[in-house]
């Protein structure tokens, strides 16, 4: 029997599976936060979630609207100051996985969350980097999740907010970045990983029902495909149930009611 699900649910479930039990994860707000908490509520109960507000090993019951919601502090093992978070915990090398989103991404998984257009005369001014520039260069590895479209998957990002694989394999090491950089990019169409030879993103699995042409049409460069492209496992019944409950609780809580 096949279960009905939305592209967004497929994306969050696939992203959640990229985290493993026991991983220490620095979590970005939005899609990464949904995926990280779904992982904790399903296959990775021991995943350690850290938010840049200083909350360490937090277990929120609903998804936070901001990285500093009170829920994150109440459910945390401890809460440290923001300088301590960035200096001791991130720069100090305690983070296994940085989990990021973006407004734009290029073939080497460099990320833009700063501006569309020229920095001095932007077409669209985005919020900016926040914690991401250093999360991207201090964590042991990076996971990225965002929706797939020609506007987000661009040939060249307008601004490198956070370093991915730079201009290709070897860039990160040459610049002095720590960690392996982006290991996996999860969208609503497919999963991509850097090619071993060039570090350019290539499609490794397509979500069920998605064609290679759909991915090509939504990517702003000629996207590579792995030699054998698999099919992403569809969301399981339990994953969907837990994710939907999580979203429903979150909506009730943020509307002002009790969850």
């Amino acid at each position: 029997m096949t279960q009905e699900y939305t592209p967004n649910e497929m994306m969050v479930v696939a992203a959640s599976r990229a985290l493993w039990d026991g991983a220490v994860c620095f979590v970005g707000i939005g899609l990464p936060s949904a995926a990280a908490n779904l992982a904790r509520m399903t296959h990775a109960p021991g995943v350690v979630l850290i938010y840049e507000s200083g909350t360490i090993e937090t277990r929120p019951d609903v998804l936070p609207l901001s990285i500093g919601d009170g829920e994150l502090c109440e459910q945390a093992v401890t809460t440290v100051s923001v300088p301590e978070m960035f200096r001791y915990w991130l720069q100090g090398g305690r983070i296994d996985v940085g989990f990021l989103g973006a407004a734009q991404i290029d073939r080497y998984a460099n990320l833009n969350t700063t501006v569309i257009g020229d920095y001095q005369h932007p077409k669209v001014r985005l919020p900016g980097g926040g914690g991401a520039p250093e999360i991207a260069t201090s964590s042991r590895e990076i996971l990225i999740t965002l929706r797939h479209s020609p506007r987000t998957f661009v040939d060249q990002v307008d601004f490198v907010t956070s370093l991915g694989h730079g201009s290709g394999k070897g860039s990160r090491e040459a610049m002095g970045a720590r960690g392996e950089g982006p290991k996996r990019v999860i969208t609503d169409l497919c999963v991509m990983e850097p090619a071993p030879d060039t570090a350019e993103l290539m499609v490794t699995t397509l979500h069920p029902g998605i064609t290679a042409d759909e991915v090509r049409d939504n990517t702003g460069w000629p996207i590579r495909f792995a030699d054998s492209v698999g099919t992403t496992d569809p969301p399981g019944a339990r994953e969907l149930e837990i994710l939907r409950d999580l979203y429903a609780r979150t909506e009730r809580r943020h509307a002002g009611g009790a969850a």
Partner: protein
Amino acid sequence: MAERMSLRAAVEAFVEDGDSVALEGFTHLIPFAAGQEIIRQRRRNLTLIRMTPDLIYDQMIGMGCADKLVFSWGGNPGVGSLHRLRDAVEYGWPAPLAIEEHSHAAMASAYEAGAAGLPCAVFRGYIGADLAKVNPNIRHVECPFTGERLAAVPSIRPDVSLVHAQRADRQGNVLLEGIVGVQKEAVLAAKRAVVTVEEIVDSLDAPANATILPHWVVDAVVEAPRGAYPSYAHGYYSRDNAYYKQWDAIARDRETFTRWMQDNVMSLDSGTAAGAKRQ
């Protein structure tokens, strides 16, 4: 030495036109009442410093208090853009706004360096990041021991820092709890410091390692209940997420914004947080 003052008197005494001003509070304990009193007193040409400008700086920028913003993430958390900030940056309304943009790691380190009395902060950051190309205050130094190339930014030394906290005692010692952000660093880095609190109590009864600002590092303590609203004060009230969502529509349009500020901030008495009347 902390003097107990009204909010109006504290802003009159410690915030001047042209000052560099830090109102800190990382999502939690955002000093809205203090920021709105600065708006009511029509301070001008401020350099506003804050990691996450949030709605309070959107309001201050839209009301013309600032000519420069130093920040590291300029959005409405979980909602979208800060429209007044964008209007000032993109169209110069109501006045042109210069920006100095950093990452969180840089600003957190810069506050810490300010508190430590150092001229700059050194950290491993901005690697491969384009901000280093557009912000001349992002430079690099070589470690004299290992040769590693590290990022350097000037320390943050505000003329005045304003923060909100849960409690102060009658002497003016201040207790901060929950997500403490960079408030301690912001206060210790500043030439002058104003703290608003939910309440003034006989004794803080604080655990040994609690975050305390001793009365002698604070210039003014102001009792301002709900002074962080619509952000939250751990142990007192929660964040009004609906306000943050509604702000998107209010701030999108110049006239709607101006009318809202007249009705909800300018017409209120000093020391009242906008929205406090809604409780």
